């Protein structure tokens, strides 16, 4: 099957592979240890999946803000996003 029209690149393949792995990991985690809704620093009670969603959405906006407002390398934004993901998953 020719997938040339999808114009794959190594960075996007890595990005989607990581997202897929994360979803598989979350599914296994959920089966092994079902989530309990709890209230952290976010204004709503969240499950593990909710926190992942919020984390990813805010991460996307962190990257957009970084690109739009600065000329610095995108890796800094990635670092902030990873840090944010850790914080929101642990204390969100």
């Amino acid at each position: 099957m020719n997938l040339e029209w999808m114009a794959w690149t190594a960075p996007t393949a890595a990005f989607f592979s990581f997202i897929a792995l994360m979803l598989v990991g979350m599914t296994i985690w959920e089966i092994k240890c079902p989530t309990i809704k709890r209230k952290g620093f976010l204004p709503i009670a969240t499950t593990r999946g909710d926190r992942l969603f919020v984390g990813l959405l805010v991460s996307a906006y962190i990257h957009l803000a970084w690109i739009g407002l600065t000329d610095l390398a995108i890796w800094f934004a990635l670092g902030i996003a990873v840090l944010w993901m850790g914080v929101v998953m642990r204390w969100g």
Partner: protein
Amino acid sequence: MKKWQDNKGWLFILPVFIIVAFSAIIPLMTVVNYSIQDIFGPGQRIFVGTEWYKEVLTDQRLHDALWRQLLFSGLVLLIEMPLGIAIALTMPTKKGLGSSVCLVLIALPLLIPWNVIGTIWIIFTRPDIGLMGALINDMGWSFDHTASGLHAWITLMLMEVWHWTPLVILLAYAGLRSIPEAYYQAARIDGASAWAIFRYIQLPKMRGVLTIALLLRFMDSFLIYAEPFVLTGGGPGNATTFLSIYLVKIAVGQFDLGPAGAFSLIYFLIVLLFCYLFYQVLLNVGKGESS
């Protein structure tokens, strides 16, 4: 045995996964791929990293289109939601010819194809032969949606409200019909006013359907394309150039697939954020009131 039966359920939702994969996930992945490359043709592309995102995020025309879009969606929700609820409250509650006729008449605008809606309103508001346009001009107000940005906005808002308020009405009406009569009887015994019945019985019981109505109306109005494209083509000037119209100009008019891909993803993220916020607010509003 029980475990096998539980797992078999997955087979039934497998077709949905396959359809969603082909209709949403694969196109989304393609858009992400396009957004970081300069696409010249099949097999001809250059990796540009975040260049298109930078270009799109600093584009003043996109900022203008975004503010227009937010204003449009805000006005649509402010008008359609209360209007839809108010009309639903006045509709006959007893089963019979009256309610059936009302429902059919109200649902009619929803049955008309979107591009036809635009054509109808072009003719309806024409200053020379259109019923509304000619009538307003005869009253002494020079009305022409092709020449004035304000008139184009008024026409668009009227068209949108006429077209989509019926959806809110039908959903609100369905919510009202699902309220058991016992609630009203209890309210009558307590001597509750009409406002108290609405505030403490009808509105809370309609929360679910109103959430759906709000999300649908926000998404539809935020992604609107066909009606303003047919009615005004984004004009006069750029007065009604919304995000979708501007996106199509880039993607189809200029065939700039890279910037269009970056634009689409930013557009998608905005819609996702607003829908999530609306959903959470409506899900949590009023919780604990009854306790």
